[in-house]
């Protein structure tokens, strides 16, 4: 037993925040999957209902954040630094906001010949959100070295996914000007790739924050 584990054995644990993080991760995962369906959806009615589904996730996420604030305000003890608990919850909510933005852009700027690059970017968002869900399910058990390593590995995975999306984004922008698109098409495609890139970034920021939190524990 390490000295840190010896001391931590006596410290009371505060677990009420973990289920809230898990709920947020659930909504992110759900919204990401719907977004993936939206990118290839051609039926306008279905697209609209999918957009509403993402919006519902975002609204539910807002409610979780509200509960978070109330709990945090009243909590004497926090699982890690109070500011970090707060920032992480905000970042999760921010990711949901970006997913909602993406859904809006896909709905309003829709076009039929969706490029494979954009599909890969939404796939990446789904993969990253799945990793995030696993991280949040394990976050309570950081005192277990195996779980801790697993969280570190998944954070690295999210970072790699974001790197891949970054490259795709750069290549896609440069390709836009080489193709013979109309001005309106360029704007639509640029908006879409941009919002997907922002969403991937928001997930990477969460993994960065988680890495910083874990390293302090």
């Amino acid at each position: 037993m390490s000295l840190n584990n010896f001391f931590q054995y006596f410290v009371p644990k505060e677990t009420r925040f973990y289920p809230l993080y898990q709920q947020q991760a659930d909504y992110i995962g759900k919204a990401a999957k719907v977004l993936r369906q939206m990118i290839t959806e051609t039926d306008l009615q279905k697209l609209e209902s999918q957009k509403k589904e993402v919006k519902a996730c975002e609204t539910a996420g807002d409610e979780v954040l509200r509960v978070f604030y109330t709990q945090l305000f009243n909590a004497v003890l926090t699982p890690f630094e109070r500011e970090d608990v707060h920032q992480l919850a905000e970042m999760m909510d921010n990711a949901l906001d970006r997913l909602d933005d993406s859904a809006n852009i896909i709905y309003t700027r829709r076009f039929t010949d969706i490029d494979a690059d954009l599909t890969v970017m939404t796939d990446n968002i789904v993969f990253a959100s799945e990793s995030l869900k696993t991280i949040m399910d394990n976050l309570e058990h950081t005192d277990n070295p195996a779980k801790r390593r697993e969280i570190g590995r998944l954070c690295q995975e999210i970072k790699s996914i974001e790197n891949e999306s970054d490259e795709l984004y750069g290549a896609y922008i440069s390709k836009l000007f080489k193709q013979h698109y109309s001005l309106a098409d360029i704007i639509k495609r640029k908006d879409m790739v941009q919002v997907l890139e922002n969403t991937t970034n928001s997930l990477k920021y969460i993994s960065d924050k988680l890495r910083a939190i874990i390293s302090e524990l």
Partner: protein
Amino acid sequence: MNLLTIAIILSIVIALVFTFLNGMNDAANSISTIIATKVMTPIQAIIWASFWEFTAFLIIRLVLNQQFAVGNTMANFADINVINPYLILSALIGAAIWVAVCTRNGMPISTSHALIGGIIGAAWFVNGSNVLHMKPIIITLVFIVLSPLIGLFLGFFLECIFLKIFKNRPRKKVDKLFKVLQHFSTAAFCIGHGSNDAPKTMGIIAVLMASAFTTQGVSPETREFIGNFYDGSQGFHIPDTLAVVCYIIMSLGILIGGKNVIKTMGGGLAKITPIRGFSAEFAGATTLIATSFLGIPVSTTHTITGGVIGVGLTDGMKSVKWVTAKRIVLSWILTIPVPLVISGLLNLLLNLLPI
């Protein structure tokens, strides 16, 4: 006025300056947490601390009718028959030189330990190790290491207990409760500081005054003058007049040192919650008061630092600033040996002079 008289007067002045500086330096220790949690403004806290430092005297002498045990220990590191004004002067100068060098170089130091090293060295180098009283020396050395550790464990476990009890209570109410309790923990810490630190120099001045009646060559005028404050026929004791003077000077040190504390507070302090502030102070106060009644001189800085590290440990080992802990260990290694050698050599030199 002969050289012995000069040595006596000089020693008393240096000892009082030590008391004043001790108050100045430790003002931050006594009140930092209560200011950090915004329970009191710096000025209110300084006045509060000065008041309770002085109250330590009233509690020890008038309420409990006890002796200043730490003062007695300070006078008991060496055989009382070998203590003379030159020995005390060497001890004080040796300690002062080392404190000045360390302060200038930003090295950690405990004034109390420097004084202890000074007395041991000055007695040992001239009279040999036979005159040293090993029991109080060993107990003091052991508690140099133990006192921060006691503070650390007490602070840690107190924080754990409070977190366990108040975990599910609304934070605002818990903070409010502990902000009130911090008034008591700060007062207790100041009483602890007053009962351990002021008697250190008190003991040195008292043994110096006692030596004026036993050392050959002290002029009758000097003895008569000292006799106004100290009854030479009673043997070693700490007169209440001397105690009151030391407490007033220490309280003045806190009042004046408080200016620096205000500056430090302006620069921002480490985050500390009312529960933590209370736990750390209570741990420090308990250690100080317990060691005071056992007559063991300890460093108040180390004790409160131990308490603060202890409460910080509830957030994990990584959340603790280990640089501070390393500084304490460095202080353990350096503080006693260096003044011991300086004071010892100085006393040897003074004894070689044709006086």
